[in-house]
């Protein structure tokens, strides 16, 4: 087990800068998730830690040792790949024991470790099969088994669930979490799925375009996003953004003036973006709980009932605003709704930079 630290890490491929300076401390036993849109450099960052790519600048430390010049095998890590990367010409047992054999462990010890991992993952009956004769979920577990037998200091996962169907994905996600609670090995997990990130992570590292946007617990990122990008990325359905103006101590929206004394001292041209999550908009009776200034009316557009809740699309000042209504009853399209924003959950972002103002 070990901590991991990145200091000023950069990676260029030729002239393209992919990782543009990342600083990060990961504690021993922590489960950290790298999340971000496609192409933001998550895999590259993970491969830098694994030693599959050389950093162009900066320091990578695992367990207190700088590992920049070490080969992957000497870094004491194990990795689970997106497409599992199982050796097709070897049986499950050989796949799992391959690294140990390369490390010249005694055959009996290899056998013992492979057995133990296979029992833990429910693979005991499949040890003689080849990967081609396994289902996607089984392959995924073999890939995990191959990582576990190495007994590494750090687990690295690169989108290990993206090839599974939705149901299996939820199931394996839970298994991974359980596994981590059992073995307590430091884990770094890459995904572009924010739900996976929220459910698995002790801390989330949100990346954009080769830079860290925010690091924190899932709750912190959800409740206190540092900018509009983080706010829009975390949470599903995504936060609504409405262009607004700051006038004195009030946020002015089409048809609404929200008092906001905390921002009164701000100068500038006053252009801001108001952010509100779909579940933080109250409807009907509930809306009366909000101060009058936060109430508004809107016409229901598309309604998506989902059983115990419904997503309703409305418009505020020409901007689409999604509302999530809890409860079995849901409005019809075209119905006039009385709504209100939960004043405690209103986010305000700078109109130009997107930085959170509160």
């Amino acid at each position, binding site marked *: 087990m070990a901590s991991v630290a990145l200091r000023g890490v950069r990676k260029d491929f030729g002239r393209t800068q992919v990782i543009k300076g990342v600083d990060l401390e990961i504690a021993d036993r922590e489960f950290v998730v790298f999340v971000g849109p496609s192409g933001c450099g998550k895999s590259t960052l993970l491969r830098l830690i694994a030693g599959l790519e050389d950093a162009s600048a900066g320091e990578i430390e695992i367990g207190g040792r700088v590992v920049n010049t070490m080969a*992957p*095998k000497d870094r004491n890590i*194990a990795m689970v*790949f997106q497409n599992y990367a199982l*050796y097709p010409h070897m049986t499950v047992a050989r796949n799992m024991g391959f690294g140990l054999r390369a490390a010249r462990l005694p055959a009996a010890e290899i056998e013992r470790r492979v057995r133990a991992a296979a029992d833990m993952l429910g693979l005991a009956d499949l040890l003689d099969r080849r990967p081609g004769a396994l289902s996607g979920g089984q392959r995924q577990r073999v890939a995990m088994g191959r990582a576990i037998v190495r007994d590494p200091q750090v687990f690295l996962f690169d989108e290990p669930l993206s090839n599974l169907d939705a149901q299996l994905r939820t199931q394996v996600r839970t298994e991974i979490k359980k596994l981590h609670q059992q073995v307590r090995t430091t884990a770094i997990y890459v995904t572009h799925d924010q739900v996976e990130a929220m459910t698995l992570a002790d801390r989330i590292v949100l990346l954009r375009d080769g830079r860290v946007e925010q690091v924190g617990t899932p709750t912190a990122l959800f409740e206190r996003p540092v900018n509009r990008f983080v706010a829009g990325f975390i949470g599903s359905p995504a936060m609504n953004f409405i262009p607004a103006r700051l006038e004195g101590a009030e946020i002015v929206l089409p048809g609404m003036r929200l008092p906001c004394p905390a921002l009164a001292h701000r100068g500038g041209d006053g252009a801001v973006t108001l952010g509100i999550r779909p579940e933080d908009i109250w409807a009907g009776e509930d809306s009366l709980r909000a101060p009058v200034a936060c109430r508004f009316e809107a016409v229901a557009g598309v309604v998506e009932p989902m059983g115990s809740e419904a997503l309703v699309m409305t418009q505020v000042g020409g901007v689409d605003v999604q509302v999530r209504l809890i409860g079995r009853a849901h409005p019809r399209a075209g119905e006039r709704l009385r709504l209100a924003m939960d004043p405690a959950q209103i986010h305000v972002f700078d109109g130009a930079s997107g930085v959170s103002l509160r």
Partner: protein
Amino acid sequence: MKGGRPGRILAFTLLLLGGVVMVTPLLFMLATSLKTGDEVYALTFLPRAPTLENYVDILTRSPFGRWFAVSFTVSTVSTLSVLFFDSLVGYTLAKFRFRGRGVVFVLILSTLMIPTEMLVIPWYVMAKSMGWLDTLWGIMFPGLMSGFGVFLMRQFFLGVPDALLDAARIDGLGEFRIFWEVALPLVAPALSALAIFAFLGNWTAFLWPLIVTTSPGLYTVPVGLASLSGEFQTDWEMIMTGASIATIPTLLVFIVLQRNIIRGIMLTGLKG
């Protein structure tokens, strides 16, 4: 062949005709090898009294056994060398980025466009200056690698996922063992195909072995058989007998490796 669809009938008829055209000379060769010398020019297809005398003769009265050994050595060594070096170079070209990779690849490809006839003179000059004329090494050195093999292997290695190689790196294998234990088994079908090409090419090679050798003890089978046509006033039945024996290794190579190709594809799940 069920139903009476005219297209199918036509196709099968054409295939059958093609098959007959291909096989007839081979059967004729085999038939002739079973005839006596008097009967050769009678041009009947089947021998009147089939005899194995020619087989005894060629093995006892001519250095055929030696020629066979030379051919076999040259073909086997060249094939193994082609398999090893071509796959090594193909792998490097497919899986590593380095300055000049494209140029190297194009240069190797361009060798495919030069016919043997153009190369024998430079080869000869080279062999002569190195003292390789009339030696086993002299016969085989031009065939130890082939541009075609490099190209073929590169194409197949392109189909091996990088993640597998990365997984092996994390598993702690060195680069050569990754090539040998992970990448190479996955392109087994291509190796089999290449082995067939390389073996047949060397086994049937005529021009270069003819030029580079002078002592009959170093002849390959094709060169040796050709030499029979002068010395024995062209004993066709002998030549056909030698040729018949010479097809055995090629048949064996083909049968063994072809099965391997199919099994390889089933086993690895990789399709070329």
